[in-house]
């Protein structure tokens, strides 16, 4: 009888605090808990009683990596409820801002958080010693993402210009144009980066599952569109809470999401989006996807990094297009008259679909808010992945087993701070 226990008390290179406890006996998993002990953050309660106009300044504080996602889901939902006609060019400027966030977040995850795992380094700093030119290049690419956010949003973290109705100040063309040569340089680097990702030794976890993301008829969906799944579901943001249900599990301060009808887990994020929208990827993104070895349909979560490379290229190509064609919205924002009702919207945060719902009073006061971030939707699926992946690797030494478990979790680029509304590993081999 071999009983093994894996304990990861604090999972590294994820945002927020979580632990992993696994007990296995004779190759069978007896207990597996992804424990989220990051304390609850009460953002939904902070929003109650606030005026709608304060929401774009409060919700981005949920996350330092994807503040734009929080702003956009809130702003677009409230605009639809209030029937706001935003000035022409607003949609394009929002998409550009969001692309900046995708570039920054995806590049950071690929190189500083995930790649060291695949190459067996303890940290990005150790990796940087052996691959200094690559790391310098990716830090420069990440900086371009930050600079887009600063030029469009007024600040590189927690942008200040996005408002319900538009932008408090719309970037000028001459402020954005200097980004073009830098973006074109970055795009030239992407196929080589995809080749690097293709060379990384990749574990395998092939299986069927359901993936959820936004779809749009004309563009790779980020801010606008409906939801779809790889099993053929199609629904709108207004229907989100009927399709996806949050359940509480004792070991987690973050709720878990399941499909309401089948009670099965699903996952959202770059790999889901690429599966749903590969035909809408831009040319360099298509090339990166091919060179990184990703062919859809593909539900193996270890292909998430390849999906991130393709999406990073897409965000750069879209940024080039949006800046070239940019005409500043005039005026920069519409006049907004609040009305009572329910606002719902979903946008595609770097980590996946981000749902917001606000119940609003006649004068624009927020009565109730509900936010379902991608990480909490993915938590149950992370546990499922671990259950399916672990039996094949339980014979590995403790340190390797721990690293493999962390890789499974890190495929999702989890943001535990966002989700408590994540890992220390602890494997017990009984």
């Amino acid at each position, binding site marked *: 009888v071999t009983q093994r226990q894996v304990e990861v008390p*604090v999972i*590294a*290179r*994820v*945002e*927020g605090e979580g632990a992993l406890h696994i007990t296995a006996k004779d190759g069978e998993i007896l207990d597996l808990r992804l424990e989220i002990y990051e304390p609850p953050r009460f953002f939904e309660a902070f929003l109650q009683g606030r005026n709608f106009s304060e929401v774009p300044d409060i919700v981005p504080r949920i*996350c*330092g*990596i994807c503040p734009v996602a929080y702003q956009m889901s809130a702003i677009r939902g409230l605009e639809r409820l209030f029937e706001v006609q935003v000035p022409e060019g607003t949609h394009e400027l929002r998409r550009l801002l969001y692309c900046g966030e995708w570039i920054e977040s995806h590049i*950071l*995850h690929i190189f*500083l*958080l995930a790649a060291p795992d695949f190459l067996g380094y*303890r*940290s*990005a*700093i*150790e990796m*940087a*010693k052996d691959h*200094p030119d690559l*790391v*310098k290049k990716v*830090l420069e690419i990440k*900086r371009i993402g*930050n600079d887009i956010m600063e030029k469009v949003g007024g600040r*590189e*973290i927690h942008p200040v210009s996005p408002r319900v109705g538009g932008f408090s100040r719309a970037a000028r063309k001459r402020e954005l144009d200097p980004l073009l040569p830098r973006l074109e340089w970055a795009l030239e680097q992407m196929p080589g980066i995809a080749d690097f990702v293709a060379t990384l030794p990749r574990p395998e976890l092939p299986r069927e599952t359901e993936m959820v993301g936004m779809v749009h008829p004309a563009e790779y969906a980020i801010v606008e569109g409906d939801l779809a799944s790889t099993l053929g579901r199609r629904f709108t943001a207004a229907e989100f809470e009927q399709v996806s249900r949050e359940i509480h599990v004792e070991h987690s301060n973050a709720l878990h999401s399941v499909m309401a009808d089948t009670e099965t887990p699903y996952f959202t994020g770059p790999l889901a989006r690429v599966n749903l929208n590969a035909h809408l990827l831009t040319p360099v993104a298509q090339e990166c996807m091919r060179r990184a070895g990703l062919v859809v349909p593909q539900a193996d979560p270890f292909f998430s990094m390849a999906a991130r490379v393709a999406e990073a290229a897409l965000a750069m190509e879209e940024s080039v297009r949006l800046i070239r064609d940019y005409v500043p919205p005039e005026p920069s924002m519409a006049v907004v008259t609040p009305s009572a009702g329910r606002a719902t919207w979903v946008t595609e945060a770097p980590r996946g679909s981000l749902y917001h719902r606000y119940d609003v009073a006649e004068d624009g006061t927020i009565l109730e808010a509900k936010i379902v971030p991608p990480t909490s939707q993915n938590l149950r699926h992370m546990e499922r992945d671990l259950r399916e992946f672990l039996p094949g690797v339980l014979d590995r030494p403790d340190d390797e087993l721990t690293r493999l478990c962390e890789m499974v979790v890190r495929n999702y*680029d989890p*943001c535990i*701070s966002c989700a408590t509304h994540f890992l220390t590993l602890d494997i017990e081999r009984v």
Partner: protein
Amino acid sequence: VNPARVRVVGCGNPEAGDDAVGLIAVREARPALEAMPQVDVVEIGAGLRIVDLLLVDAAAVVVVDAVRTPRGARSPGTIVRVEVGEGDPVPEPDPSLSSHGFAITDALGLAAALGEAPRVVLLGVEVEDVTAGHPLSRPVAASLPDLIAAVVREAERLLRP
């Protein structure tokens, strides 16, 4: 990030008692610093931006921050100066870095690994109270004028050829 010969970075949380001391000192020193040629003054909270501030276009960086020694080895308000690479001990980087937070030691480790570390001087003040919503503690507030003078002096020294 503006190109500069010397970049002065104030770090901290303005709403957490003594943790704000680096921000306040740099804000107060800003007029004197900006009167010097080629000095870039930046105020930041937590996060990854410190990496860019160390790696991009600066020959020297002064980082001003609140510090806390383990086990109360220094009294609150004590000003600490560490010049990286001059034999002063800097803690090892933490391999468990988060996706969002990045400690100064991690940033220095990354810069060193890339072979691009500028001259870095850390000016710190030992804290007493970092409770959210509290003002600066008495000993830290008392050392603020000395810290501001030290920041200006450091920039002047680093600008000399």
